[in-house]
């Protein structure tokens, strides 16, 4: 899974072999899950606020949209978690300290942090979605 570009800094491989954003060596996977939560959070608030201002006191339809958006975001985060395990070698619990200065050590650390952020982001999305289940009015 190691890219040519990783071995030779400053050079990309042949067309079709460009480095993927979510792949070994890239740190973007760490911000991806919290970003999905942030998008879901803002979208939920904008949707509920607009709906309440324009459509009235009942919140029955938009709450299902918020739930659907939450399901999509959680599915994407699950995929990110899978990538963190497969491509970065991430695990939930690290029992040995990562002390070696190696690509493998760094990848494992990024995978570990990404996995934890995935869990945190899923919890945050669930917490954002829960009020939609509990309250049917604005």
């Amino acid at each position, binding site marked *: 899974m190691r890219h040519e570009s990783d071995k030779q800094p400053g050079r990309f491989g042949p067309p079709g072999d460009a480095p993927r954003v979510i792949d070994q060596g890239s740190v973007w996977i760490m911000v991806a899950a919290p970003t999905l939560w942030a998008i879901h959070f803002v979208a939920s608030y904008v949707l509920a606020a607009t709906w309440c201002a324009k459509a009235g006191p009942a919140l029955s339809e938009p709450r299902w949209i918020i739930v659907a958006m939450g399901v999509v975001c959680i599915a994407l985060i699950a995929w990110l978690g899978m990538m963190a395990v497969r491509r970065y070698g991430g695990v939930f619990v690290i029992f040995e300290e990562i002390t070696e200065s190696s690509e493998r050590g760094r990848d494992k650390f990024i995978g570990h942090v990404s996995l934890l952020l995935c869990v945190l982001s899923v919890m945050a999305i*669930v917490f954002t979605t*829960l009020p939609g289940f509990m*309250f049917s009015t604005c």
Partner: protein
Amino acid sequence: MRNAVFLISPLLLGGCAGRHNWLAGAGAEAARIEQLFWVLLIGAVVIWCTIIAAAVYANRRQVDPKLERQARWFIIWGGAVIPTFLVSGLLIWGMVILRDITSDSGDITVRVDGERWWWRVIYDGPDGDVVTANEIRLPVGQTALFRLTADDVIHSFWVPALGGKMDMIPGRETTLALTPQKTGSWGGLCAEFCGGAHALMRFDAVVMEPEDFDAWLAAEAAPAQVAEGDPGLAIFLEEGCGACHSIRGTQAAGPVGPDLTHVAARERLGAGIYAMNADNMARWITETHEMKPGIDMPPYPDLDGARLDRLVTFLMSLDHAE
């Protein structure tokens, strides 16, 4: 000296008692919030003691690499998994309480409109709206559904002894259901800063036996008992008071200020801040802004002597019919 201050400090909690005591158990909704409060408080104390005990234990023990793995599991469960479940449980519990107290049903309906800085109160009477102000009377044991609105800025309706507070938002209606469990006069207030006299925007929530409440509502619905040619009413109208205040049964039908039909039947004056008596009423008319700075009502400092006495006598006669 320091120890003495420490020992005496719990006495300051006495300031939390009284008419605004949200631990008074005076309302079913307040009792549910209180239950959540005690669980949170006791839970926080237990967790804090456990963590401090663990820290002391860890500090005194020799480092044992064999326990490293156990310690990591302890951190994962104690620092992440269990708190997640606890916070989720508390969130759901709190939301269930909030959902119930914002429900849309009740035995009686009371509309309350927040104004700067007083409360317009409207009951659904058998013969139509019963408008009053700055005092809310409720029957014990019955759920009162409050429909809350605001006329100018955001206010917040709160009777701490009866339950949680609810924002009053211009252009929107919010609801709050309160079920009083104890008779008595409880304090209500605005819990959202709304301008200069915000701290003086108060009201009384008087909880009565249901039959007393019915009698009160019937008396409140009746027009004012004003004798024909009452000189106080004449002064009231000549001074232009009727442009802002209503007194049902008279020509005064101003919609701007508090309805004064039965003003003398209320416990307090000036939106829950002064005792209702003739001296305070006279001062309210002549030194309005000294008593409550910033309000829209202009003072009438030139009104004195016999005219003021007649006006005050008239206003203090606006009680319920015997």
